[in-house]
């Protein structure tokens, strides 16, 4: 029996050689992805995962794990298995034409044209 400096441990009456059966697969359940919203109006941000037996417990663990410090307005949990994601090795699917000024506000210099037009009108 352990005589510990920690009275809580001594009270538990633990044998030093308390071998136990190994944990089986899924003993710690599957994982949920956690999305955290700091305050109303913010986007929910992915912050990590929790292991949980069901969505309700995932929400509870998510609250403890990602909401115990700082402020939280809202949390979402999504089963990891239900996330459909792109692959990094397919990153070329995001490649487009290298020059994309045509879809940027800065790609349209109207003032130059207006000023040129005004100058021509005066002369």
């Amino acid at each position, binding site marked *: 029996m352990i005589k510990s400096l*920690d009275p809580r441990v001594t009270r538990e009456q633990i044998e030093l050689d308390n071998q136990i059966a190994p944990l089986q697969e899924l003993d710690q359940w599957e994982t949920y992805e956690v999305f955290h919203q700091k305050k109303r109006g913010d986007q929910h941000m992915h912050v990590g995962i929790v292991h949980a*037996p069901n969505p309700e417990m995932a929400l509870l663990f998510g609250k403890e794990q990602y909401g*115990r410090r700082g402020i939280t307005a809202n949390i979402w949990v999504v089963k990891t298995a239900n996330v459909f994601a792109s692959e990094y090795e397919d990153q070329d699917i995001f490649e487009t034409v290298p020059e994309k000024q045509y879809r940027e506000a800065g790609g349209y210099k109207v003032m130059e044209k207006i000023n040129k037009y005004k100058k021509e009108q005066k002369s």
Partner: protein
Amino acid sequence: MYGNAYIDPNEKPKSIIDGEDPIKLAEFEARIARGEKIEPKDWMPREYRKQLIRMIEQHAHSEIIGALPEGTWITRAPGFKRKLALMAKVQDEVGHAQLLYSAAETLGKSREAMINDLITGKSKYSNVFNYPAFTWADACVIAWLIDAGAIINQVANAKGSYGPYCRALDRICTEESFHLKYGHDNVVTLATGTPTQRKMVQEALNRWWPPIMHFFGPSDKISNHTEILMRWKVKMATNDDMRQQFLNMYVPKIWDLGLTVPDANLKKNEETGKWEYTEPDWDEFKRVINGDGPCNAERLAVRRNAEERGRWVREALNTAQSKYVVPLA
């Protein structure tokens, strides 16, 4: 709270990249050299995966086991505010373990396998937690100086190459800044208190100094192995560099309080800018990390006990099929 991964010095470092696809390896190394992160499904060398699993897993175990010597003092922390703070700190450490286990899981080792390796003694954890926290002052010295050491290591590793580990460490480092300030406040309170309090904190410092010097591990052998791990940004600084950084930041703060460090040879060489100290007893380090320390057996027995006596709760949650139905009559 974690120093540095313990790599068995007897392990053969040969053939670390043997059989790896040279084109993929070159792409992998180029990505790291550009400062990009590696993500779980990316191609990675076997040794990169293996070393990261070992390191992150040891780090996670250290957080869990580290909560035990500190938890010892929750019920007897002086005053309500310090009880609250210590409970919050211990809860944070356990939360850090959750984050780290998650990061290690992305490399393909299940949480169950990691817990099994911890409770059977196969996996290591930070050696300092095999020592007891005899008094409240020991808990204060741990919270200040062990956390300080851990932050040095974690800040360095947060700049590493593996995305999930870096993200976990960023969060951990933010949380640990409170631990460090809390620990410092506790030590300052004792050091500026009554003669009895000063004596208490000095004795705790004397007890914890050898484990603190062990904390970052023995000098790295300058080997091909270390060099590759540093190029892959698995290892971010040598053990000696981190120890020097720690001494440089904290010895002046300890002296500032009029406390002494139990090493007559400890001084900063003004020419080299390096700290000189008595070489720690590495035989003791090896003996303790391999199981023969004052608390190894207790720590693992307590961990197994938690696993075993918590099992019914997990099982009950697994089979929570029944639903409350309003009585019919």
